[in-house]
Each structure stands twice: as C-alpha cells, then as structure tokens.
C-alpha cells in the first residue's frame, strides 16, 4: 500500500467512525446515569430524517443540525418518560423506540426520498496544518462535524471524570439510593442524560444524511445504531476508549472495500462480518475480565423507585 492510499484509508476511517462516535457518546452518557437506551438506531434515523428535511426546506444545514438534535431528543424523551417516571422496562421501551423511529422517519421522509441536497457541509481547509504531508489529508481536511464530534467526545470524558456534575451522573448510575440520600434529584439527572444522549444519536444520524451520504433513504443508518450500543460496552463506559473504538469500527468499514480494490483475495462476506466478530470478541473478553471499576454502572437498566428504598 503506498502512502497516498494509506492516508486516504485513514481519512475514510475518521469519516466512517464519526456517526458511530456521536451515537456512542450519547448512549454512554445515558448508560452512565443508569438508563439503557436500545433505541439508538431509531433516534439516529429520526435525527437523519429531521436533519435532512429541515435542511432541504430551510436551506441552512445548521438548522438541519438543530432539527436533528430536536428529533433525537424527542424520541429519547419518550424513553425517559417511560423508564424514569413510569419505571417501565428499559429494554422493551428501547426496542419499541427503535421500531417506532424507523417507522416515523420513513413516514416523514416519504416525500424526500432521493431528493437532492443542495446545501452540504464542505471540508474545511485548515491553513498550515492542512498542508502537512500525510497528516494534513488524514486529519485536517474534514468537515466541521468531524471536529465537533471529537470535541464532544473529549468533553464528555472531562465532564464525567473531572467535574462535580460528572460525579453526580456517575453516582446516580452506580447507586441511585445513595445519590438520593445526599440530595441528588435522581430522576432529573437521568432525564437530562437520556435526552442529551438522544440528541447526540440524532446528530450521528444527521451526519449520515447530511455529510456522509447526503440524501434521505429509508433505514439509511443501516444498523450503525446497534454498533454504537455495542461500542459503549467495548469502551467499558469510558468516552476516550469510545473514541478509539469508533475509529476502529470505522477503519474496518473503510478497509473492507479497500482490501477488495487492492486485489487481496478475502471473501467479501468474511470482510462484511468482521466488525461484528470484533464486537462479539470484545463482549466476551469484557465479560471474562470484568472488574468492579471497569464494568457497567451498577444500577444500569434498573428503575429507581424512592419508595422501595
């Protein structure tokens, strides 16, 4: 592989990893507060549809991003209502919302199928840094959303581990009874994290419909929401590891096609299943060497009921 091909591969890796990283960061926040949201795929689809429809109608892609945030947040708020206030089963609610999101986005986007997208995010041309050979094309020729994504993921790490708010969120996810005892409003924290997480999933979806493949097609996220859910486990609920993981998954997606063009004789079916094998392997490894400090938040998936304290 020559050096240009390698830099193209790495640049494609970053692009392919970005939608997954948006969604995974959001899911990570929700899970840290104890809410398992399996509706990521649905929230991404709604975000993609809202973002696309709004951009086509308003002519401004930043308004599209706002609409995507609202769309993802809207679906997540249903999840929050069902699982936090009503204490419903988180798995059932999340799965229902995935189906609901794909139905809703298909319904709303019906008239926009195949519509052209005249307003696109253009790659930024960062001066000086962009001119560095090799590193320039890999890291500094992307659109604004790529950098926004890395900033959000890094900020998430800072928020969770270096601030009082982060401690609050983590304590709610680990032990809501104790958090409640010291005066933290458990429901409010969980609402905030779930809805903010949904907004980020919406952003991930919008990245696909506005930047990655600027178009609207039904079910266009094609399973990336599920990869994001797996990635949170892969990352052991740590945002910095999520960044690495997202680009690893993106790299596999980018590599799948490039291995074929290089004439390396591997079955395309094997390459297509490779990311999922990696996911399963990680799940197994994580389960085997689960440690108290690195595992899932203790109260993940459990409804909190004050009266049952």
């Amino acid at each position, binding site marked *: 592989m020559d050096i240009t*091909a390698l830099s193209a591969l790495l640049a494609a890796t970053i692009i392919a990893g970005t939608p997954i990283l948006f969604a995974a960061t959001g899911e990570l926040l929700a899970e840290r507060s104890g809410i398992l949201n399996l509706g990521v795929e649905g929230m991404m689809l709604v975000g993609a549809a809202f973002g696309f429809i709004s951009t086509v109608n308003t002519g401004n892609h930043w308004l599209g991003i706002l609409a995507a945030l609202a769309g993802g947040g809207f679906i997540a708020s249903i999840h929050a209502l069902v699982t936090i206030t009503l204490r419903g089963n988180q798995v059932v609610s999340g799965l229902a919302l995935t189906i609901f999101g794909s139905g809703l986005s298909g319904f709303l986007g019906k008239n926009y199928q195949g519509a052209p997208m005249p307003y696109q995010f253009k790659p930024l041309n960062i001066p000086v840094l962009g001119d560095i050979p090799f590193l320039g094309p890999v890291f500094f020729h992307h659109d604004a959303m790529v950098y926004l994504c890395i900033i959000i993921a890094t900020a998430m790490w800072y928020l969770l581990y270096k601030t009082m708010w982060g401690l609050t969120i983590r304590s709610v996810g680990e032990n809501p009874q104790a958090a409640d005892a010291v005066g933290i409003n458990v429901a409010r924290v969980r609402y905030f994290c779930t809805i903010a997480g949904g907004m980020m999933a919406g952003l991930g979806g919008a990245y696909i419909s506005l930047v990655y493949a600027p178009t609207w097609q039904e079910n266009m996220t094609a399973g990336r929401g599920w990869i994001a859910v797996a990635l949170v486990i892969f990352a052991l609920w740590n945002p910095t590891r999520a960044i690495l993981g997202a680009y690893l998954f993106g790299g596999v997606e980018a590599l799948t096609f490039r291995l*074929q063009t290089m004439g390396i004789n591997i079955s395309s079916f094997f390459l*297509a299943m490779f990311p999922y094998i990696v996911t399963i392997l990680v799940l197994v490894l994580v389960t085997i060497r689960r440690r108290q400090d690195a595992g899932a938040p203790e109260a993940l998936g459990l409804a909190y009921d004050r009266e049952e304290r």
Partner: protein
Amino acid sequence: MKLKKFTVLILVAMLLSVFVIGCGNDAKTDSEPPAEQSEAIKVGWVYIGVPGDYGWTYAHDQGRAYLEDQIPGVESIVLENVPEGADAERSFEQLAQEGCSIIFGTSFGYGDAMLAVAEKYPDVKFMHATGLQTADNLSTYFGRIYQARYLSGMVAGAMTENNTMGYVAAFPIPEVIRGINAFTLGAQSVNPDVTVKVVWTNTWFDPAKEKEAAKSLLEAGCDVIAQHQDTTEPQVAAEEAGKYCVGYNNDMHEFAPEGNLTSPIWNWGPYYVNTIQAVIDGTWASESYWGGIDEEIVDLAPISDKVPATVTEQVEAKKEALKNKQWDVFTGPIMAQDGTEKAAEGQVLTDAEMLSMDWFVAGVEGSI
C-alpha cells in the same frame, strides 16, 4: 401498581402505533372512474421498496403509470415496502381478496409466498419479477439487462483514460456477475486493455456503504464507476471526484450531470401493457418471460454528449444487431478470469448457462 399498568398501556399503544405506521403500507388507489368502462380491471402491485428510491421500485412504478395511461379502466392497488417472507403472503392475499384480476410482485424473495397464494386463488393471475417458479396462474418475468450493460460497457471503455474501471456490486449472484461480465466484454470490445475492478458491498441498499465503496475504487485509480446497486450514491461519488460513471435502473443523469455517461435501464411499461391486454383479451397464459432489448423491456439511457459521436454510432450499431437477434453478448471466444475457455469461437452461451453464471471473464479484477 397503577403506574405499572399505565406503563404497560403506553407500551401497547406505542407498539400499536408502530404497527399502524409499519404495516399500513400506504395502500393507495389511483382509479379511473370504473363504472363507465366495461373492461375495468383491478391490478395489484407489491413493491419491495418505495417508488422514491429512484432505482428498482421507481422503474416498476413508472411502468405502472405507463400502463394506466395506455389502458383506461385499469385500477391499481399498490402495496409499498413489503418485506420478503411471511408478511408478503398476507399482502398478496389481501390484494386477491380485494378483487384484483392480476397481481405483480417485484422481488425475487416473494417466490414462495406467491406460489402459496396462487394455489389458493386459481382465478387470479400472478406475475413474479425475477422469479423461478411458475404455476398455471403464476408467470415469471425478467429482462436481459446484460445486453444494455454490454452497450454501457462500450461507452465506458471508450471513455476511460487509464483503462481501469470500477464496479460497485451488490451480491455475488449470477444476475450481478452476468452484468459485470457483460459490462467488461462491452468495454473490451472497444478497448482490449481495459480492466474492471469489482467491490462487493453485500447490500442492495445502503447509501453510505455504496458511496464508500465507490470512493475506494476511485482511490484505487478507477476513472469510470459503474454500479449494480439501488441508490444513486456511486454516481454522486464519481461526480464529486470529477470522474465518469454509468448508472443503473433509470437514467441517473440528473444525479451526476457532468460525469454520468449513460445507464442501462428498465422499461417495464410496454410489457405491463401487453400483459394486461392479454388478460382483457383472455389470451393470458403462464410463461417464463426473459425479454431482451429487442422487446424494449431493457434499454440504454441517452448517451452523454461528452462521448464522441463515433462511439455512439458503434453502440447504436451493436444495439441494432442485438435487436435483430443477429448476435448476443455471450458469444465466444470467451475466456474466464482463470484462463479457462468458457465459449469457443462462435459458440453462444445458453440461457441456462447465463442464469447460473458463477465465473468472471478475463479482465475482471475481483473474487466471487
């Protein structure tokens, strides 16, 4: 406890709303006033996707519109987005119960469902696109799109500058392989040195993946991109890179106004008109239809004006030869990728050999 009941209620309500949205399928009835027409005929359609895909389903829907235009009194009942499998059987049954005289199913995977429903409703006629199984009231129909692909290959082969072309392909099945081989043979007929790199996406439909696959081919030096996929994204990728591209299903010119050279296209309309006319006349009989460019079920979209006139003339001449049935695409000598001879000089592959094709011709770079 009350709260829990309420939760269950909410979840049930949500699931129901999902079913309403997911299974509603938007049955739409575009009807002429049927009363004044004595030969009013109800026609059912089951689509795998939505007409808005600008691909496979769009082409069928154009055919339906053409049919309604040509034969007054045709009343269409359309079910969109019907998945292959158990749901399909219910959809075909629904159309049969609504009084359709003839029902079209447009995806390969409807085969078993159509066979089962056809047995239950012997008076209703069933038409299965791309299918294999027939019955007394079940026909299959498909077109020789490989002929149009050969012609599009001629155009592409004449326009490539570095003799390397890319092909974004869905699944390694005979239909797709046949198309890649026809495209390659067409390109080689005008440019013997040309090679075609193939990338499998293992999906008919994933805009992001299709685009990524096209990009990887462009990075590998391909300067023309062809596709056997259902979205227009490979065209967009080529357009963005300033390279040429060849579409599929419909004229994809508007999605890549600079780069698109032509597209092998489906033209179902005339076939649908003939079929419905046969039903009206009472001459309909079960068959396995595989029509070629001579019957206009497949065709080549208008060729871009960037292509030199001499090339266009060559393509037209080949098209005439195909139309007059003087010649077909898989006429020997044909060498396979591994160097074995698949057809001797002058030998023509049979339909059976074409329908089970599982090898690449020499000049294709890729593995099945």
